[in-house]
């Protein structure tokens, strides 16, 4: 399989996206048909016992859609902050050669601020999973 060198008007990016789309679609069709065949060939004997949620044999009470512990929300928020900053670092990493020392200094400053932010979260107890002792 020789790599296809895209000719003419098409940039290497456009057939790439197109290929990705077609490929993703074909995979969905394949996996979907696999599930369909399994549903078609498999047994079908529904019963009330079978369709009850399995919670270690104890009969479930109420809905499972309960409130999450708050630290999970915090993790999600921190992830957003750090991941968006990751996107800036990504673009810097591929053009590192062209940016020179100035680019290096700017990004080092950026990463230093990131580390400072992380230290702030840490000191403030944002990374703790236990309830903090109440401050007087």
């Amino acid at each position, binding site marked *: *399989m*020789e*790599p*296809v060198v*895209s*000719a003419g008007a*098409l940039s*290497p990016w456009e*057939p*790439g996206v197109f*290929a*990705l789309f*077609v*490929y993703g679609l*074909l*995979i*969905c069709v394949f*996996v979907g048909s*696999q*599930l369909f065949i*399994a549903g078609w*060939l*498999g*047994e*079908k004997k529904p019963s*009330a016992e*079978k*369709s*009850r*949620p*399995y*919670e270690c044999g104890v009969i*479930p009470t109420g*809905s*499972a*859609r*309960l409130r999450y512990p708050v630290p*999970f929300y915090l*993790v*999600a928020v921190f*992830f957003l902050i*750090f*991941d968006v900053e*990751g996107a800036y*670092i*990504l673009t810097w*990493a*591929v053009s*590192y050669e062209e940016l020179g*020392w100035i680019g*290096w200094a700017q*990004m*080092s400053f950026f*990463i230093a601020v*990131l*580390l400072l932010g992380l230290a702030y*979260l840490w000191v403030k107890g944002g*990374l*703790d*999973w236990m309830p903090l002792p109440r401050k007087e």
Partner: protein
Amino acid sequence: MGSLVTSEWFRLVLGLVIVLAFSQLNALFLVWLERKVAGHIQLRIGPKEVGPFGLLQTIVDGLKLVGKELITPRSADSRLFPIAPVLVFMPVLVGFLVLPFAPNLIIRDMNVGVLLIFAFSAFTVLAILAGGWASNNKYALLGAIRSVAQNVAYEIPLLLAVLSVVLMVNSFQFSEIVKGQERVWFFLIQPVAALIYLICATAETNRAPFDIPEAESELVAGFHTEFSGMRFGLFFLAEYTNMFIVSAVATSLFFGGWHGPFGLDLGVPGIVWFLAKTYVLIFVIMWVRWTFPRLRFDQLMNLSWKFMIPLSLANLVVTAIVLKLV
């Protein structure tokens, strides 16, 4: 123009067929290997009845799964529940699109290859959350939110470790990264990044010692508790295929891809080097699973936020300085 389109289509479909066949066979083989490794580590033999060395055991198991009923639990989300297994399996197969098996054996050598794999592996989080939420089972939901918290926490150091390699090559293209390792593999230059990558990859695939999301002793089976038959099968196959993908990415980023050690190819074709290194890494991941106990959840999160993220950021800055000076 017409010939370009036809060849493009031909390559895609051919690639897809090979990938589908390979990924399914590979996953079945890995399940067998895992059981064999687990068996020998625990002084047992593992599967041995069906076929030579029990090799056909997982195929028989798979056939059994196809024949099982697909149960949708009462008050489960009827739209989200059936698509969760598709959603979990699709992104791991997309990863094969850019993996550099050999110099001429890449389905599409995209200039954003590395980014594509990590973008799609983020989809797995959505699938896990959809599966856990849709099941309407308390254990499944708990497993799902733990899994999401863990996956997002480990995604950051994973990305930063990969970036220190990207920094050295100045490209996201897999073929460029592998070409950069013709003489010296990057794990000799970037041992910290390689270690961070391997730990985070183990966490991303939800495997012990990071298997809190599906901790059997406390959460039944975590987010896939309610999935039965082939739906469970797809979650299972996705886990093992994902293991192959992270190991293959580690091979191409840190362990020289299709190159032999120190530029010595010894007349062995590139794909053999690539697969050999990938399977050795997979074996190491399995070995780790059956050797280390599970971490507690707060220890797990703190390992990422308080240790791996600062370390990987520092590694990135040091790499940048050294690259400028050398």
